[in-house]
């Protein structure tokens, strides 16, 4: 909210620089987001008297002025036509600056010396447009040679406040003034509201009926013999500084009062109130109404309207109607000053897409007792501007008057809660500045004014004390009491371990959106009945592409690979640890999964190796890899299901060529997706020491020819089974296809280590087992020794 500084100063005497005030109010809870200083950029501009004007010898449109700027008379060439000898004008001297960083230097204009510039209002940044006015002419008798900022009152500025939703009272300048009064401990001045009522009775002009409790109070006054025109310059200036466009004197008064007190008002042209009756009622569903801005709107029965006998004249608290607006020939005005249910105004404004200065105040739930002050203030201004006469009496329908709220607070509790030590008298004094009446006993008995609906419990009072005392003065203290031990859960610890393994293997962690497009499932070839298509859906997504919560991380990692590939990043190793979301009975189920993705000079076994590394570090040994030809995401011949303790926990492999194509990647892609919880459960915490071997090992190599389709796991199973008594380790060291190996066959070579724990093995023993392994491989797998 924009508050012109000089307007604020009307209610509190603070003799301080605007920036100092901004900082102080920010620290006491009224955050100033921006300080707009008038004339900040103006330098070396003074008042000057034009003593003589002559025609320019070389240019018809230019004139040469001798200007007295106090200490000297300087010559300035101007193109302006509105200046005359004897005028006092703002003069930008040599070396001066103007708003926008404009620098003025002396020079020659068509051969004649010019030692500065006469300024217009626009050039000084105090008006938007100078095409009409030309050079700014100052009143006669303005002193000469004085800084223009002093003359024009440009030493102030505008404070732009961020008002929090709980402080409805601060949506008016007077509320801010009260805050300033409390912060600086200076009295808050009263508001001038006096005016004379003419002896006629308002009842003869208008009748009001309130039909709905959404209107908590409705007050009105009538002003007659109105002379519509422009409001005085000072009022227009203040409105503009506060960000409101001046319209005419009556509308300006309602806006002025709204800005000042935070209470929106509305002015109707009495002529256009049909039946001279105002009815506050719910709109009918489908009721049409044209608002001030000329837009026809369709209302519904959740909305409150101000109506006459024929129809709506205003949407309550939001905007008035076009038909009854104040016109140039309006002579009798009805001032409405009412109080409406805040949430209802908010919803109406939202439904109509019409958030106004008025609705944004009403929606905070204003104090109904503000109505009297505002209505009187408006009438006072009418009288002060001499633009009309206030008809006697007022309408005021106020069924359930709001009363001040009283609460008791223990001052010691406040001190303890905040961690300060101030006297109860000092507390009472602070609260007094905020408009609270405080009786000081053992406890503080506080009467909270109705404009502070936000103060209801002791914590609220503690906040008032703390912020006025100054948060910066509260000492910073360590938490006392028993030390609390911080612990990481097993899941947190193991997740970190997994991330570290991946980083050490050259993978970069990624971080992708949790919502995806439903089309992503088609892109990864999921069949229509895939359980992964059963998703948590967002009712109001940012767009279809972000409309469902992901059940798998694969589309996200594929998109990331796609982006990188398209940008010529062709060697990419990435992973993500993130939640997936699956519909469940009450709350969705959100298991954490790990996805891994690679493109570049890598193959299936690089990916499998990383997974094996992770399982190794976690001490998980009951692992199986099953060929999975059915997984639609993957190349049917290059996909493995990962089983831990015989339970499937994920899958990995080379992405199906069609999926790769869908993501526009012309390279082999390897991805994995593994659910983490089963890994955490299988994690082996215990490791037991086994004595180092005492007896020597026997190392035998074996090379066999088998059919291509024989899996090495089958060979290893046989070796282990036959040699289980004495085999210590089986290590695959070569797989070869090509020269000297028949078509459809492969050569597989193992190193087998034999050892017994209790004695040295004899050659004979080893030979026996080794032979039966070879025999068994030959019988079961048709293996030939090479």
């Amino acid at each position, binding site marked *: 909210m924009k508050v012109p500084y000089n307007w604020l100063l009307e209610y509190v005497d603070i003799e301080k620089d605007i920036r100092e005030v901004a900082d102080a109010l920010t620290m006491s809870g009224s955050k100033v987001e921006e300080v707009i200083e008038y004339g900040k950029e103006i330098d070396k501009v003074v008042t000057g008297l034009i003593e003589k004007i002559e025609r320019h010898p070389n240019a018809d449109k230019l004139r040469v002025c001798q200007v007295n700027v106090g200490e000297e008379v300087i010559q300035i060439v101007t193109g302006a036509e509105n200046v005359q000898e004897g005028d006092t004008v703002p003069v930008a001297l040599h070396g001066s600056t103007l708003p926008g960083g404009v620098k003025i230097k002396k020079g020659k204009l068509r051969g004649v010396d010019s030692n500065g510039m006469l300024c217009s209002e626009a050039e000084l940044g105090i008006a938007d447009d100078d095409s009409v006015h030309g050079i700014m002419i100052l009143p006669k008798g303005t002193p000469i040679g004085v800084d223009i900022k002093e003359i024009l009152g440009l030493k102030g500025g505008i404070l732009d406040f961020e008002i929090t939703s709980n402080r409805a009272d601060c949506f008016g300048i007077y509320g801010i003034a009260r805050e300033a009064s409390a912060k600086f401990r200076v009295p808050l001045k009263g508001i001038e509201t006096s005016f004379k009522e003419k002896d006629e009775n308002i009842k003869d002009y208008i009748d009001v009926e309130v039909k709905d409790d959404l209107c908590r109070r409705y007050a009105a006054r009538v002003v007659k013999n109105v002379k519509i025109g422009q409001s005085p310059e000072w009022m227009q200036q203040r409105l503009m500084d506060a960000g409101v466009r001046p319209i005419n004197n009556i509308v300006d008064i309602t806006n002025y009062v709204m800005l000042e007190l935070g209470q929106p008002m509305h002015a109707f042209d009495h002529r256009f109130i049909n039946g001279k009756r105002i009815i506050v009622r719910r709109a009918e569903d489908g009721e049409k109404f044209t608002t001030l801005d000329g837009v026809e709107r369709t209302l519904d029965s959740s909305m409150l309207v101000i109506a006459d006998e024929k129809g709506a004249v205003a949407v309550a608290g939001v905007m008035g109607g076009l038909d009854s607006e104040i016109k140039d020939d309006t002579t009798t005005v009805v001032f409405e000053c009412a109080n409406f249910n805040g949430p209802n105004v908010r919803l109406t404004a939202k439904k109509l897409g019409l958030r106004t200065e008025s609705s944004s105040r009403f929606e905070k739930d204003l104090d109904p007792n503000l109505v009297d002050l505002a209505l009187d203030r408006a009438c006072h201004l009418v009288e002060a501007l001499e633009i009309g006469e206030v008809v006697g009496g007022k309408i005021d329908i106020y069924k359930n008057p709001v009363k001040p709220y009283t609460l008791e607070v223990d001052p010691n509790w406040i001190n303890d809660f905040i961690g300060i030590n101030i006297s109860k008298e000092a507390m009472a004094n602070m609260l007094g500045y905020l408009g609270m009446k405080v009786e000081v006993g053992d406890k503080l008995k506080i009467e909270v004014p109705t404009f502070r609906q936000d103060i209801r419990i002791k914590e609220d009072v503690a906040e008032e004390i703390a912020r006025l005392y100054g948060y910066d003065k509260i000492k910073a203290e360590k938490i006392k009491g028993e030390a609390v031990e911080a612990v990481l859960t097993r899941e947190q610890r193991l997740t970190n371990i997994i991330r570290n393994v991946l980083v050490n293997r050259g993978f970069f962690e990624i971080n992708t*959106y949790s919502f995806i497009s439903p089309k992503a499932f088609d892109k990864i070839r999921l069949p229509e009945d895939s359980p992964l298509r059963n998703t948590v859906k967002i009712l109001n997504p940012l767009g279809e592409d972000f409309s469902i919560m992901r059940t798998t991380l694969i589309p996200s990692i594929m998109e990331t690979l796609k982006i990188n590939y398209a940008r010529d*990043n062709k060697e990419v190793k*990435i992973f993500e640890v993130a939640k997936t979301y699956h519909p469940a009975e009450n709350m969705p189920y959100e298991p954490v999964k790990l996805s891994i993705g690679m493109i570049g000079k890598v193959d299936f076994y690089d990916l499998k190796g990383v997974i094996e590394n992770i399982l190794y570090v976690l001490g998980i040994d009951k692992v199986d890899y099953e060929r999975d030809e059915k997984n639609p995401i993957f190349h049917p011949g290059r996909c493995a299901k990962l089983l831990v303790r015989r339970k499937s926990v994920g899958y990995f492999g080379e992405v199906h060529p069609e999926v790769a194509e869908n993501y526009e990647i012309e390279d082999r892609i390897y991805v994995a997706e593994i659910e983490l919880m089963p890994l955490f459960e299988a994690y082996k915490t215990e490791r037991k020491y086994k004595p180092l071997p005492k007896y020597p090992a026997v190392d035998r190599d074996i090379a066999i020819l088998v059919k291509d389709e024989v899996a090495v796991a089958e060979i290893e199973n046989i070796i282990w089974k036959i040699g289980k008594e004495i085999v210590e380790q089986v290590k695959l060291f070569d797989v070869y296809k090509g020269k000297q190996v028949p078509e459809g066959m492969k050569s597989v070579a193992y190193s087998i280590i034999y050892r017994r724990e209790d004695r040295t093995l004899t050659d004979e023993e080893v030979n026996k087992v080794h032979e039966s392994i070879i025999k068994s491989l030959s019988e079961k797998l048709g293996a030939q020794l090479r």
Partner: protein
Amino acid sequence: MREQLEKIKLEALEEIKEATNSQRIDEIRVKYLGKKGSLTTILRGMGSLSPEERPIIGKFANEVREFIEEEIKKALLNIKNKERELKIKGEYIDITMPGKKVEIGGIHPLNKVLDEIKDIFFGMGFSIAEGPEVELDYYNFEALNVPKNHPARDEQDTFYISENLVLRTQTSPIQVRTMEKTKPPIRIIAPGRVYRSDAVDATHSPIFYQIEGLVVDKGITMANLKGTLETFAKRFFGEKTRTKFRPHHFPFTEPSAEMDVSCFVCGGEGCRVCKGSGWIEILGCGMVHPDVLRKGGIDPDEYSGFAFGMGLDRIVMIKYGIDDIRLLYENDIRFLKQF
């Protein structure tokens, strides 16, 4: 005979000094001390000496032998050193050639900074709590004093899943969830993803990260809140960091505050990052509202607490000078490799 011995001694010394390799030394050893060596030959002729002369010459001959042996030893050591030096000289390599590396990856900048923040709070006794991202309206709003139709709901454009399920708009729902599960003393932080239906641009992302903090115990004061968060700020942003607490309003804390830290880019002088103010807004905080404690099953007359919440993305962006939030969610590998 004595002269002969003297001569041998001098000759041997001469030859040893001239020898440049160990092979030559071996030859010298054989020539003088070997079975057929000149010194041995002389000693064999000792018999021809008178009994008086024999011990004298014998002693001298031994001295000569010892002398030569000693010189040979010295020379050998010398030559070995020289030979080693020579070998070393021939083995120089270009140490500016690249090392043999295992390529190492990296943690995402968001998590990297988060890990740092977690460590700091961990050191202060804070454990890490977690909660669902698809959250009940109750925990996300109602339990935090934001009933239906509260204006604060407009400010946090919410993604809805159903009438009572939302994508959490903040990490604060973890407050009541934690209180329901844990008896005080409570000291937790809860980092995680949050969601707002903001259109994507350089400063807005519909998904971002927050870190919630909650402390509940007997006698927790606002001074404790300041103490804890000041300590955090100094550990995270540097010991010279100053903090500023400004009053603010949140429905679920009372009193409430925002904390600024002195700009860690310019040190408080004013720069582009802090928009010339010298301060950067980092987090919102406050004393847990008694209604919220009650919702968590904690008696506000017995216990008090404070809570805070900060946006991780903003901190990461300022820390690394990242000017577009989209970079954090796009995962260009060239971006990720910078952290």
